[in-house]
């Protein structure tokens, strides 16, 4: 993924404003959102302006530049080390930055502080003078203003910095979900586009052959769709749904209200089907309720198509796949655990312990559901990460081996070669020899 993600794509000020407001209320400290260049994008409502000390610093061009530079550097450092970054700004105050990273890309930071961690003593006045004399004309006034600065303990600074860090991480997870949602929608649109094109070609051919009757009728597609849903064949069901959507766009594309009505009609069909299949009526109703709300809120054709797709997936997962759900949970938990811990040594016993089943049973589930062993999955995850690092980072093979959980680089190279067909060094040096299906378009 080469594109640059901007802060605004992931976070909207509606979410951010109350967070900044409340941090400020709870801690009494000013917290702001800055972009990668250190520009302040959003400030708390009750603390729009900086404290008088900072205002004085920022009243000169040079001071302002230094301030921005401090913030820019702090955000980047925080992102580099993936932890809250506590620092002394150019003017001598303590501040801290929590990085905002999406898909490992640094997009901005929350910065908070402008406090002292010590009761000002003589040496502090000396520091203030030394640090600020080249951009503040009247240092004595600045010192007077410094006397108003808040003093909090180092422990408290750490605590607030970590709190911000956790909030930032959580925000970015949600942000990632939003971004993923958009991408999924775009993917669906692309699939739909392909379907429409197919349909056009087909129609053209049919017209030419004048054999219109041989085509599967709309009603037939619908039946096929419902059948696949009930069989729990999600792939076939979604394929049929795409055909229906292509038809719908053709027919109602210019009339969104009717398009919506047709979406509702399909929802009702799904609902009836589920009730006929003696699924719990209340459960089906409650399930429908959530999607009905989403449909009524959606205005664009893209949104409506997407909600419909999600509903169908939901139906299949909730009502037609019940017997598998327990295992799905275990499998997902294991995959998550692997993703979070592949950088160290892992054993089947440890993983099985984490999901409260025996190693034997876990192996059994994996073989049955995924057709591979737990350790295969672990290796696969490690190799994917290794490939990513080889492609995008400056780390050498020894460092990469370590980062993906191999203490022995030789062993890592062997496993890599077995998995990818070429040794890691060659992979890094010569992208053209990478196995097929691995080239993400880079030349």
């Amino acid at each position: 993924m080469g594109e640059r993600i901007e802060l605004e794509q992931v976070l909207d000020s509606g979410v951010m404003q109350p967070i900044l407001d409340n941090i400020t209320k709870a801690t009494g400290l000013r917290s702001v959102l800055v972009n990668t260049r250190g520009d302040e994008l959003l400030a708390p409502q009750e603390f729009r302006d900086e404290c008088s000390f900072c205002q004085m610093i920022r009243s000169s061009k040079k001071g302002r530049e230094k301030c921005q530079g401090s913030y820019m550097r702090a955000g980047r450092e925080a992102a580099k080390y993936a932890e809250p970054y506590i620092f002394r700004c150019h003017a001598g105050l303590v501040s801290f930055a929590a990085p905002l990273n999406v898909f490992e890309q640094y997009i901005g930071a929350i910065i908070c502080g402008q406090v002292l961690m010590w009761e000002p003593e003589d040496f502090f006045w000396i520091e203030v003078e030394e640090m600020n004399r080249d951009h503040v004309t009247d240092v004595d006034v600045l010192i007077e203003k410094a006397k108003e600065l808040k003093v909090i303990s180092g422990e408290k600074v750490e605590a607030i910095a970590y709190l911000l860090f956790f909030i930032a991480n959580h925000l970015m997870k949600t942000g990632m979900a939003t971004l993923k949602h958009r991408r999924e929608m775009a993917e669906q649109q692309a699939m739909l586009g392909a379907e429409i094109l197919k349909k056009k070609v087909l129609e053209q051919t049919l017209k030419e052959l004048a054999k219109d009757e041989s085509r599967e009728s709309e009603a037939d597609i619908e039946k096929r769709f419902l059948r696949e849903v009930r069989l729990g064949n999600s792939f076939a069901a979604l394929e049929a749904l795409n055909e229906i959507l292509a038809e719908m766009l053709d027919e109602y594309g210019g009339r969104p209200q009717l398009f919506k009505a047709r979406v509702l009609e399909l929802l009702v069909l799904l609902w009836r089907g589920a009730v006929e299949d003696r699924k719990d009526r209340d459960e089906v109703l409650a399930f429908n309720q959530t999607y009905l709300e989403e449909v009524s809120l959606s205005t664009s054709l893209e949104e409506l198509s997407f909600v419909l797709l999600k509903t169908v997936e939901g139906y299949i997962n909730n009502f037609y796949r019940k017997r598998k759900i327990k295992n799905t949970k275990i499998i997902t938990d294991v995959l998550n655990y692997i993703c979070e811990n592949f950088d160290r040594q892992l054993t089947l016993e440890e993983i099985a312990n984490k999901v409260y089943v025996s190693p034997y049973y876990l192996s059994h589930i994996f073989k049955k559901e995924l057709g591979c062993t737990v350790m295969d999955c672990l290796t696969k995850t490690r190799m994917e990460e290794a490939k990513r690092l080889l492609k995008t980072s400056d780390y050498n093979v020894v460092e990469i081996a370590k980062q993906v959980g191999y203490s022995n680089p030789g062993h890592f190279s062997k496993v890599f070669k077995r998995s990818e067909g070429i040794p890691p060094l060659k992979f890094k040096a010569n992208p053209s020899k990478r196995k097929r299906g691995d080239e993400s378009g880079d030349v």
Partner: protein
Amino acid sequence: MNLVMFKQIRQAMRDGMTKTAMELTEDLLKRGVSPKEIIDKALMPTAYELGEKYQKREIPITTVLLGSRAMLSCLHAMKDELSKINYVGKGRVVVGTVAGDLHDLGKTLVVSILKASGMEVIDLGIDVPPEDFVAAVKEYQPDFVGMSCLLTTTLCSIKTTIDLLEQSALRSKVKIIIGGTPVTEKFAKTVGADFYAPDAYSALKTLLGAEGIESE
């Protein structure tokens, strides 16, 4: 008595007691103890200790920040003494890190002592590309260029920088000192540096020594 006071300064640095550290330093100076001794016996080992403990995540960064302040206050107390050190002309040094951390106490100490002892220090900061070193040498005409790096992958940019200085006909005008974890003496010789410093403290000694103040 002096030993006890060195110990107290070290404890004051660990506790971030700036005022205490500064007063103890002033006391020691009054007793005729040299700044060099205070740096060697109190500041340097503690700077090293705090840096290492932080690397191992044994202490929080706030402790390092407070310790750094206490250390700087001691250096401030010695300012007059340090400026009295007799140089063979006051030197000017351009320093930069190829990759590093702002929280590097060692570098802070070196830069502060150099500054306090009257040397003019131009700190180019971190992630400094070779072109910036060359530009800085042209602009400031320093006596020394100090370069450090932390990753093996950035080693070659030291060589690039030296080569670029050579091409710009500036190499003979400066003395180059290099250091950092992956740098070895052999490497320093290979790339044609004048001095090699295994750590921040020996960098300091070399720089001051080369200026003719190392009186041991």
